[in-house]
């Protein structure tokens, strides 16, 4: 087990190295729009140096004049030491901006994950136990509708109904107009109010796949021999399902939920952007479209790290939860 984890971590580091190399190369090969825009602005000021000189100076100051490989190793050395540089778009250290915005993303992700679990697991179990019934059709169909809903379209519809027509929520942002005048409780409620629609969007769009996953696994378990044995023993149907079957269904569920825990920090790029929630997703979207290399590199490496951590956690959990599985 220990050896397996160590081996996996070594592999992860190796993968992370290549992923960051690919991303760095990709970003460096793009026209450095940020530097050019900056240079354009600076050179139009009265008495300024010509555009070419500014480009050269900015490139030098941002380390963009080095060849890609050398630049990458410089970046990697800084990254390994926890020095992530300053964001160009936000003009603060990357890590500071990250600390500012990660909280709200995590809260959003955590709440919607809990909601997903609460909705998906019971419905998935019901659908599986009553396979081919009306309830099963309804649940399966709505799970597929949830999967098929494009986030942006669904979010816009929610906005139209609840923000524009009913006026319950604001369409954009994290705080209301009179936020500064509110007391602590009022501030909390105001923020909570602004998070309702984004969390609803996140939950509904992603609840479907978990529901289907629960249903499929439950069906698989229900077809297993030990369930037949349990029934043959004369156990009540409720005990068969909730004691014998459900606990076995939990095995894949625990691994998949465990694996998605690191993803709570990755933010919801589209949803946050649509609702202008200042989380990590929206921030990184802004930095990506502005060509802010330090923040983008940090965000992408962070996401890659989270993916690897998620895979590792789910594999380990698989062995921990299911004694039949031995890791090698």
């Amino acid at each position, binding site marked *: 087990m220990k050896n397996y984890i160590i081996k996996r971590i070594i592999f992860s580091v190796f993968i992370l190295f290549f992923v960051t190399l690919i991303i760095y190369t990709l970003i460096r090969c793009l026209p450095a729009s940020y530097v050019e825009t900056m240079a354009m602005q600076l050179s139009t000021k009265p008495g300024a140096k010509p555009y070419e000189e500014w480009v050269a100076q900015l490139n030098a100051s941002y380390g963009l004049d080095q060849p890609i490989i050398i630049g990458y190793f410089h970046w990697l050395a800084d990254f390994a030491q926890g020095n992530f540089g300053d964001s160009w778009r936000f003009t603060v250290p990357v890590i500071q901006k990250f600390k500012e915005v990660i909280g709200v993303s995590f809260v959003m992700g955590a709440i919607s994950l809990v909601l997903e679990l609460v909705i998906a697991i019971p419905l998935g179990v019901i659908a599986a136990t009553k396979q081919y019934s009306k309830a099963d059709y309804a649940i399966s169909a709505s799970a597929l509708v949830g999967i098929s809903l494009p986030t*942006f379209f669904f979010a816009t519809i929610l906005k139209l109904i609840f923000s524009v027509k009913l006026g319950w929520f604001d369409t954009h942002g994290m705080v209301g107009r009179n936020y500064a005048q509110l007391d602590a409780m009022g501030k909390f409620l105001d923020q909570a109010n602004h998070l309702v629609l984004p969390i609803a969007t996140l939950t509904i769009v992603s609840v479907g796949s978990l529901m289907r996953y629960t249903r499929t696994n439950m069906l698989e378990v229900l077809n297993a021999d030990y369930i037949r044995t349990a029934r043959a023993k004369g156990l009540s149907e409720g005990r068969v399902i909730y004691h014998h079957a459900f606990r076995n269904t939990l095995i894949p569920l625990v691994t998949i939920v465990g694996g998605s825990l690191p993803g709570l920090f990755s933010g919801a790029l589209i949803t946050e952007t649509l609702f202008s929630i200042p989380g990590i997703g929206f921030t990184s979207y802004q930095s990506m479209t502005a060509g802010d290399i330090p923040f983008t590199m940090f965000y992408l490496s962070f996401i890659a790290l989270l993916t690897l951590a998620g895979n590792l956690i789910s594999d380990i959990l698989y062995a921990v939860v299911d004694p039949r599985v031995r890791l090698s």
Partner: protein
Amino acid sequence: MSEELKNTNQTEEQYSLNDDRRVKVLSPGALVVKRFFRNRLAVLGLIMLIVMFVFSFVGGFVMPYGQAEQFYTVTYLDKEYVGVTRNDELRYAVADGQEFGTILQAQFLLALGKGKTEYSYKGEDYTLTEEGADFYSISKADGTVLAIAYKDIVNAADGMEDPAFAVKYEALKAYANGGTSFSADGGDYTLDEEGNILSDGTVIGYISRFVVAPKENGVTITRDFKEKLQEALEDDITEFAYTDEEGVESTYKVSYDATAKVWSVQQKTPSYVYDTYGQPSMKHPLGTDKNGMDMLVRLMYGGRVSLVIGFIVVAIETVIGVILGGISGYFGKWVDNLIMRIVDIFYCIPSMPVIIILGAAMDNMRVDPQIRMLYLMLILGFLGWPGIARLVRGQILSLREQEFMTATEACGIRVSRRIFRHLIPNVIPQLIVTCTMGLGSTIIMEATLSFLGLGVKFPFASWGSIISDVNNSYVMTTFWFIWIPAGICLLIAVLGFNFVGDGLRDAFDPKMKR
């Protein structure tokens, strides 16, 4: 297909031994079809897909409009046409060869205010005579008329020269005293009731208290229009229609500004403009978009783009995934290890951010929309293959241990044929399911990118880029027909793929059936 399925579906045959369907012999393919059509959701999905395909691919030919055809409409703009003021100030006309400067004018006004009939300035004496209501003449001591001051204005008729001083003088005199004829400069003139000055039967000018000034250059105001306008003003009408000499009828709106004492006349001018955000009508069942293009046609062509992009991307993913997964699974050992590590790396690349970055970069480089679409497909396909490679490899790892593979080896069939002719066909059921579901998610991905403005660009449409109009919140709240239908099309297509994929999974994998 049925031949390929024989191997995987051996279990199905065994299954049907316990089944009363056993009496009816069906090929494995037919069994799959039968199971598929028994699933109501899958059939519904198939119908949805057929509808969307017909809509997108046939619809474009049926509709009479082109993809980028713009429509026009006539809107009426209220343009400031003329301003009308009632002349309440004295105006001056100076006799030929005389001078009557501003100082003399001021002195005259002073005298008039005091009720005097004479005044002197710089040793010269002037006499002012009230010739009629608001009409005065100023003459020198020797009796020659120097200038006249008046409120009723003598205008030249259309196309005529400005009347000479003497004519003006005599005309105003006659007008003020109710005369109908006068003579000046050796010519005879008549004056009719409407204030027209006629010479030998032709109108050379007219007298009116209203000053009509055009608000735009190049606008000449006809006498006829002025009269009509005057009538309207006197009757206090706020809107009147006027047909000019060329027979063009236009409507005018009159409003009075009390502080400036000006009537402003606005002409309703027809403007030929793009029919932007036209409401749904018989001609355009879903209205028109911001460029004045028919929404329904845009939706059809947008569907074509969305579906074609989906298919091409999935095709690219499948080709790369099958080749790499097949090689990896068949050879095992270090080849497998290498390819799987590459898969791990690709799995780890956050695809959405990377595509957003590339999209922003393409925005910056102003890539041609058509080439951009091509790049988009390549990028999406190149980032999406690892899932398929994993699937294929996993299946092949177990398949290659089976007897039929030993048989192919014994027959001396070459490796590439063994992989792609004997192993891959056995993976096809799972591949079809994955690809069908993948089509749905690819279409959503493309739509999301286009929605963010980083995918398909104008003049091409895709369902996502059509919805991106809602980034303008005015459009979102006011013009539902712009974005709701596109979203519904998107939902139907993706849902169709997911329903069909789900049904296929159940049909191919009978173990899931009780």
